[in-house]
């Protein structure tokens, strides 16, 4: 087998065959009659490969920050030390006993990690308030509809809306069910068609990005 075949064509053949097998298994009744354990094994293989991708991410992270450390990148290297130390600590406590069950691991997760994650997440509440102040200016008819719909949906969601006027939850619910539902239905169908098109391009080897080419 030539090198171009191994690098370019063999991956496409593997993708095509496994993809077609999975599609057949999804759409026909009782696929095990025709395909035996193949479907289950392919799913397991995909899960295992995804697990290795996680390891790849950690290794890449380590390489990037070890490079910063070795080059003493100004303003960065001490944070790289901190990051590497914390990664090793988390991996270390995770390996004690059954993976990820030790009380120290849970302490690391429940206290620093949850607090930091929810902090970044909760910043969004402030950002949406300032973005809404800027964006919901009634410069056109569409802007008016946007602002009014936003107010009704917000007051539907918050108990104060029902307390102020019973119409807020009713109208807000109608906005969610009818215009919003219709728009998202169209969006979901369009996105699904886009995903089908991309998947077909991947299966027939015409999607260049999948093999790292652009």
């Amino acid at each position: 087998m030539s090198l171009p075949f191994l690098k370019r064509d063999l991956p496409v053949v593997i993708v095509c065959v496994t993809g077609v097998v999975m599609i057949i298994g999804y759409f026909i009744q009782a696929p095990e009659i025709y395909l035996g354990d193949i479907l289950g094994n392919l799913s397991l293989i995909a899960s295992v490969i995804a697990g290795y991708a996680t390891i790849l991410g950690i290794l890449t992270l380590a390489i990037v920050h070890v490079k910063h450390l070795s080059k003493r990148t100004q303003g960065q290297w001490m944070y790289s030390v901190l990051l590497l130390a914390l990664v090793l600590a988390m991996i270390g406590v995770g390996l004690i006993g059954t993976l990820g069950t030790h009380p120290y691991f849970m302490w690391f997760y429940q206290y620093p990690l949850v607090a930091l994650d929810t902090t970044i997440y909760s910043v969004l509440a402030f950002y949406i308030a300032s973005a809404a102040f800027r964006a919901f200016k009634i410069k056109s008819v569409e802007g008016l509809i946007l602002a009014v719909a936003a107010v009704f949906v917000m007051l539907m969601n918050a108990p104060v809306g029902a307390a102020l006027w019973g119409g807020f939850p009713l109208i807000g619910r109608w906005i969610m069910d009818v215009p919003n539902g219709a728009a998202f239905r169209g969006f979901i169908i369009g996105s699904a068609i886009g995903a089908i098109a991309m998947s077909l391009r991947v299966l027939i080897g015409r999607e260049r990005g999948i093999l790292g080419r652009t």
Partner: protein
Amino acid sequence: MSGLISKLENVDRRVIYFVLIIAVVAVLLNPIGLPVPVTTPTRRYHDAIASLPRGSLVLVGIEFDAGALPENGPMLEATMRLLIKSNQRFVLASLWSGGPAVARIYLDKLKTVIDSSGKRYGEDFVLLPYLVGGETAAAALAKDLKNTAKNDYFGTPVTDIPVLKNVKDAKDFSLAICITAGTPGVEEYLRQWVSPYNMPLIAGALGVAAPTYIPYYNSGQIKGMLQGLRGAAELELIIGAPSSAVSSMDALSAGHLVTIVFIVFGNIVFLVKKYQPKGK
């Protein structure tokens, strides 16, 4: 005058943040106790669990992690309370790497409830480890649970766990619950559990994600839905166990009101500027 209007139109975002903080903290410290009417999607979520025959096996997909804990966590807590109260058996699974740790947080939090109900780990409920692979893992779990998760979260082989003794695939479950903060989440369960196996599915989604799932709820593919923290509060009220979600409702109201006030204020200033006589 136009200088003042320009200043008001471009109010520093820190003023908005400050007002929001004050409003939210004030009602957290001095709750108002506004009533929280229960909506139909939450009622259907509750009924989907409560109407199951006693001892039914339910899959609970914990598809969120630390960042969404304040919003999805109360949903999970209320759901687990309801499952215990209605005497169901359940399997906690997660396609997110932080999911099992979240499950442990709530299993620890509900320890007293679990012990007093007589439920025992392994016999009535089990926690599976993180299932790698996203939608592929969801498909594999539906097809062959014991080969996908060979051990539970604590390392016990699934063949030794009584609650999973007669479980092979999705057909052995009566209900699937997906509490999600994104992907993998509801759509993966819809494609891999609902469509192939006709599994009833109920979902708990973040407030920002709930509008996306409305089409699925309206078409009946999702039987019931908790929409954001409000949905969690409603469920807590239905089951008679008000907790963190209910106590956050006044803060939710305050935050929404502040945002609306600033939207209205911004538009008033904008319209005044637009229609003010030239030269002022």
